[in-house]
């Protein structure tokens, strides 16, 4: 008897690191499943009217134009402070965001602009091969982590540029690890009628976005968890 129990005990102690590791992985998986389950559930009714810090991801071409259209109808006092992030090679987007914020400050008579403007390394340039994009995405991920640790937003608004993927993945990791619970809203571009963009596909399939909006009914039929909201432009 004694020999058996000492045998068991020595087995356990030699397997301890493995046991710990497996347990750790299991905890992470359960936590991830919980986050995914909880992700599409609306937040509880807010008794306090505290504004939510908001990250706005801008992108070249129509992305920023569509995002500005959305921001114009959101109540700014609920979504503040606002952090705008655009790709480092994108010169016009932050400028357009600054114009928006300036006009907001003018119209409300407030001198202080409660907005910050930042640039991030791009995961993938338009036309870049998908193979080299793997490395550039890793660099972008590291940079995104740095920015996200500083911002820790409660709301993330994005509409498709590749820059939003590292940011949304990190926001999701923050949820898993408990650093910050954020609500991620993704509006697929109006230019996507029958197929989702790569960013949209990733955020939809991996269930990272809390709410996923599409602007054409064909997409809503294909991706039933998406909300059809009609054309924004």
């Amino acid at each position, binding site marked *: 008897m004694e020999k058996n129990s000492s045998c068991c005990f020595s087995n356990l102690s030699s397997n301890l690191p493995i046991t710990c590791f497996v347990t750790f992985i299991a905890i992470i998986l359960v936590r991830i499943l919980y986050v995914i389950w909880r992700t599409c559930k*609306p*937040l*509880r*009714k*807010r008794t306090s009217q505290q504004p*939510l810090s908001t990250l706005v991801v801008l992108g*070249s*071409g*129509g992305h920023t*134009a*569509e995002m500005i*259209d*959305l921001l*114009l*109808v*959101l*109540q700014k006092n*609920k979504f503040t402070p606002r952090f705008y992030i655009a790709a480092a090679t994108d010169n*016009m987007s932050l400028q357009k965001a600054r114009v928006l914020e300036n006009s907001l400050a003018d119209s409300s008579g407030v001198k202080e602009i409660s907005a910050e403007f930042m640039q991030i390394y791009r995961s993938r340039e338009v*036309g870049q091969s998908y193979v080299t994009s793997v490395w550039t995405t890793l660099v972008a991920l590291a940079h995104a982590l740095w920015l996200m640790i500083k911002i820790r937003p409660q*709301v993330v608004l994005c509409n498709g540029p590749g820059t939003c993927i590292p940011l949304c993945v990190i926001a999701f990791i923050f949820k898993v690890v408990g650093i910050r619970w954020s*609500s991620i*809203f993704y*509006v697929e*571009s*109006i*230019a*996507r*009628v*029958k*197929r989702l*963009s790569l960013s949209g596909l990733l955020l939809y399939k991996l269930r990272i976005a*809390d*709410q996923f*909006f599409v*602007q*054409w009914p064909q997409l809503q039929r294909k991706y039933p968890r998406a*909300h059809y*909201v*009609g*054309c*924004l*432009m």
Partner: protein
Amino acid sequence: MGEAEDGVKPKRVVFVTVGTTCFDALVKVVDSQKVKDELLRRGYTHLLIQMGRGSYLPEKSIGDDGSLAVDYFTFSSSIAEHLRSASLVISHAGSGSIFETLRLGKPLIVVVNEDLMDNHQSELAEELAERKHLYCARPQTLHQTIASMDLESLLPYSPGDATPVAKLINRFLGFPED
């Protein structure tokens, strides 16, 4: 559009825009004799090309010998004025250019850039063409589209609205409806 009394044709401008992209194929084909002849035949007098990051330079022309007057520039901070004074817009398939033109109620031919990887832009152009808000063409077929287009048959586009999204976002976050 009738002619003025002294026989001078009223100014009808065709504005071509490629947005912030490089779309030499469109600029080249618009500058070709085939397309310019077709535009003249349809009663246009001036051709203004916004060529963006392209490298092909069209040939400028004053158009005093009855030919089309041609001019071009690379970028401007806002093309709204050019859109407003145009009688016809020929644009690349970028959503910004498309909707800016449709919101101004201008007749529009969208030309899809076939050199782009993963050409998702064509989906939007084709969908809007199906709904009869614009004409859709490829660089090689542009002259045929110009020849056969019936601008009266185009349907006006009513601008979209972002408030449904805002409502859903507010509701999700638990903000009270106002």
